[in-house]
């Protein structure tokens, strides 16, 4: 089976001569929920940005269903079925929820109603407040608008950068449950998270990224039980 997303030996970075990713590998099969964890500065967000064409790739390849997409720009990737939700500033605060969702499907506006139904099915509360300005929403609600917008183009794969960041515990749990719902609706999902335990609990497979390389790979449960992963990345406090 060809993976939906396959990343091979990826080298990427921002400053000349400084690589953040030093040969990272990753794949996601159709329908999988993948969690990526790792220390600060490991290159987790950079990996997502590189897949989404926001960081220049210096070497290595990224493919979508076997087709090479390395170096393609974000708008092309969205049209091909890659969705991305950044960590911060991920809604248009002065636009309403409905307008935010429209922005997500500007490349294919005729399917708006159909996709809106899908999104409202997952995020019921958004459907009731379509005319509300996104700037007036709480952090957790904004995260849902951002995810909803990324789902408008019916993506084959959804990239999430720390969906739980800055949320209170109950909202974090909600966000993770929604991510799981999205994945169950058939969307292959790759999620980067600081809340490593929660992330691994719902992930089918996980990667530990360290210094720009995929250091450990395994099922979510395997990683949670791996003493080395616990010591280096999870900490013993939450156990």
């Amino acid at each position, binding site marked *: 089976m060809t993976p939906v997303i396959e990343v091979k030996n990826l080298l990427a970075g921002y400053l000349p001569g400084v690589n953040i990713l030093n040969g990272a590998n990753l794949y996601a099969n159709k329908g999988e*929920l993948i969690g990526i964890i*790792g*220390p*600060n*500065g490991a290159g987790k967000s950079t990996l997502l940005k590189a897949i989404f064409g926001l960081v220049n790739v210096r070497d290595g390849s990224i493919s979508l269903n076997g087709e090479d997409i390395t170096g393609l720009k974000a708008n092309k990737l969205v049209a091909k079925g890659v969705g991305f939700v950044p960590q911060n500033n991920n809604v248009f605060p002065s636009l309403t929820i409905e307008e935010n969702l429209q922005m997500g499907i500007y490349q294919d506006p005729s399917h708006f109603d159909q996709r809106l139904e899908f999104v409202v099915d997952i995020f019921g509360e958004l459907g009731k407040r379509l005319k509300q300005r996104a700037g007036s929403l*709480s*952090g*957790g609600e904004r995260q849902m608008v951002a995810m909803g917008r990324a789902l408008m183009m019916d993506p084959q794969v959804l990239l999430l950068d720390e969906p739980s*960041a*800055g*949320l*209170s*515990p*109950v*909202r*974090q*749990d*909600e966000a*993770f*449950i929604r991510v*799981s*719902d999205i994945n*169950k609706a058939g969307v292959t999902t790759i999620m980067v998270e*600081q809340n*490593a*335990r*929660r992330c691994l*609990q*719902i992930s*089918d497979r996980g990667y530990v990224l360290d210094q720009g390389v995929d250091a450990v790979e395994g099922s*979510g*449960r395997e990683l*949670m*039980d791996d003493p080395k992963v616990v*010591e*280096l*990345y*999870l*900490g*013993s*406090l*939450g*156990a």
Partner: protein
Amino acid sequence: MSNNEPVKSTGLHIGDAKPGVAKKDPILVADHVTRSFGGLTAVDVEHLEVPRGAITALIGPNGAGKTTFFNLLTGFDTPNTGEMHFDGKSVRGMRSHQIAKLGQVRTFQLTKALSLLTVLENMKLGAGNQLGEGILKSLIPSIWRKQEAEIEERAIELLNRFKLSEKKDDFAASLSGGQRKLLEMARALMTNPSLVMLDEPMAGVNPALTESLLGHVLDLKKEGMTVLFVEHDMHMVRHIADWVVVMAEGKIVAEGPPDSVMEEQAVIDAYLGSHQETDLGVVTGRVDASEGGEKQ
């Protein structure tokens, strides 16, 4: 550290643990403090006492007013009404640097390092009462040279303690998020404070580094300082806090030792959620209850 559990301070309050309960030895007291932005009342604290020499956690949902309350207490914002006393002295209307001089310092949720100064320079800026301040005095090194050396010594001592000494000549901009958190905390200590206020010290810090940060917070208490911190990481709160204050919609809604506060239904509903102790893999039906759940 995981083997030796921190020693919790108990018996901090007088009477039943309820919002506004009196403390035996409060270092910080707030009365009728309100702050509104337009029609929204962000903070409306009837009465709060922070116990001296203990670690107090301030928790609550997003938008509860925790950071605004912090800003009011530290002079970064002015309340519409109310009184605040630090160590028996009214600090209402004082500017942030005046409050810091009294011994009440804070850190920020989003770190505020001066990125084009080196780590050591950032530290030295944290020290107060520097004799070389002022154009004329700065021209006469004999006035400040001795003090400068002392400040540098203290800065290096603190950097050693926070394991940042190797970075002392690097620009603060080159530090990672976690290291900046450490620098913030170290810099706050340059003033020899008696109350340290930390705004989400663990936000964006990976779990492995969390434990060393926790150790540093516990050390502050051992040295006799009072700590008040805002945090969403409940494991941290449970682990190190002696006292927990819960805010929601600008008000204090609960107070008490961590274990009892976190069992209050109102706190669970508003903040913690009902899945605290469960495995989300089980909640979402992704794994069997028999398979998951044993680790959490």
